[in-house]
């Protein structure tokens, strides 16, 4: 199985500068989106904590928002993967 041994170090990959730039740009945009969501969570807890007590379907906003931050990290990560559209050579399907 690949990776179980200690073979020679993997060769340096050949890069496509345009793809690298595009991925970096997409990454920064998605980072900004998540930063806004995370910043909202931290800001509300620090400066408007009473907002976090609001009930939605019997559970307060603090719990919903916290769970939402965890789920949205995964959703944005999957969006990023889709946007990158890496070539299939990335680790046997790595760039799904």
């Amino acid at each position, binding site marked *: 199985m*690949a*990776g*179980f*041994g*200690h*073979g*020679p*170090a*993997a060769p340096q*990959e050949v*890069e496509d500068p345009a793809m*690298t730039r595009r*991925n*970096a740009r997409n*990454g*920064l945009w*998605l*980072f900004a989106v*998540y930063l806004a969501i*995370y910043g909202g*969570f*931290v800001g509300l*807890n*620090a*400066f408007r*904590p009473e907002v*976090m*007590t609001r009930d939605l*379907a*019997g*559970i*307060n906003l*603090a*719990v919903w928002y*916290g*769970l939402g*931050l*965890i*789920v949205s*990290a*995964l959703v*944005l*990560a*999957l969006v*990023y*993967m889709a946007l*990158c559209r*890496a*070539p299939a*050579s*990335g*680790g*046997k399907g*790595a*760039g*799904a």
Partner: protein
Amino acid sequence: MISEPSPLAIVVFVIFVAITLGLSFYFGAKAKSAAGYFAASGQIPWFVNGVAFAGDYLSAASFLGICGMLSRYGYDGFLYSIGYLAGWVVALFVIAEPLKRLGRFTFADALNSQFQSRGITFAAGTSALIVSVFYLIPQMVGAGALIKPLLGFAHWQGVVIVGVVVTMIVVTAGMVSTTYVQFIKGSLLVLFSGILTVLILNRGLSVDSRPEAMQPQTIVTTPGSPTLVNGLPHGRGEGQADLRPVGHVNRLPGDVSSTGPLDPLGYLRTVQNSEIVLWTAQTTVDGDTKTVTYVPKPTAGSDILRPGLSPLFKDLRGDSLTSKLNFLSLMLALFAGTASLPHVLIRYYTVKDQAAARASTVVGIATIGTFYVLTLFLGLGAMTSGTIDLTDSNMAAPLLAKSFGELLFAIISAIAFTTVLGTVSGLIVAASGAMVHDLLVGVLGVPLKDHHKVRVGKLTAVGVGLVAIVLGICFQGMNASFLVGWAFSVAASANLPALVMILFWKGTTKQGVTWGILAGLLSSLAWILVSADTLRDVYGFTPDDAAKLALVPFSQPGLVTIPLGFVTLIVVSLLTRRTVNNS
């Protein structure tokens, strides 16, 4: 609390450790080159690396520390889960691919790819070493806490066992071994946390109306005299007393005595509308005698499921600006710290290309995110199941498992133990890589051939292991997650400014990077050492004295020291760029 060892737990534990060591020896026999020892020759498959990310990351702090904090203070523990996971977004979107592109073995490689500066190598290697050691402390503390109920050993004995076993793992193998140990451990941790959560939901919530459940408890310690618990000598024999495990539901919605099985949202809804008994600790000192009184405090579930109950976030709901700044500071450090941790960063060199680095990060986020959602239920489950050890919050998850039977306790404890083993292995590899590759070869210019690098790396691993053992004993009883918060603050202050500016600002100079790292590193360390939390929890001052003596207005340094790292880097870069241009 005094723990009695269980034969079943010991057998399961020994099997787990034997398998872990067996894997290490097997893979270790194949590690001959420095590339193999420090970076697995870049051959780890992306999926394995992704789950191994989770294995590395879900350390004692996550499993023991967060569950413990959640069980004692509710939502405040979940803030750590949220912050730890959010940090992966920075790693994926900003750091992963450029870092893979720039580096070879260590974090310093990436920073140095365009400068080849001895100053950067020194600063980055030192930072990696210090952050790794800071991160080792909570792992060793967690190990000591685990061994106590599992094998009946004292805390220090547990720390020594972990230190010795882990050092053996690292010395015999290196990155391939730690990767596969982490892969197995990460998978098992999430799987069994899921099983434990299902059992918690199936058990539901029940009211404990026994009068003794509400009786305060005391521990009196006087040097040279036996410790007294509830007025009697500490022990399990006749005429002796031990602390009771605590944590129960005082009232359920509709005044029912038991809910029966609940779905996940139903569980959270019920907790929010219940009254749960939390415990506060009051410490008084009279001469040499120290008395800690634990007092039950019935608390509304709606109060538990929002931030602000723990001493860490005290007054967050009030008008205290310093409390709010402390909170902002910690959440910033957690967000920025993940992408700055050397043992996380070096895992990007174990896969073969940027696409694999990206894919393994997404797998890591999915695995880690799932686990952190489960921590909410594990923590609340421990809070309401009478499974809290008042002297050590790190024991909540294992004791919760014990409430479902010895076998589950044995498995969970063994997984938690391998969690510590795996994380400590990764940290020691990162630390020895920084020491050998960066400081010894890069800074001091010691000429080492490839196989000598591996040998010196292994000797360094033994040294780091010894340091970890000593620190693990010194920091006994502190919450593992709280301690990791420090490591995140130091890592984010020292490493993140350099990483980000090298990637995104062409004006960055080697002097700017060097001084930026050193400024962030030293300022965050100094801030932590003179903060009220450290004065109270490490130096042993009473909370009032600690607050008076603290030299900084709040305890978490990130809000000041992360920007300081950026500002230092920018200012020094601007000054030195002009010098370079002129010359």
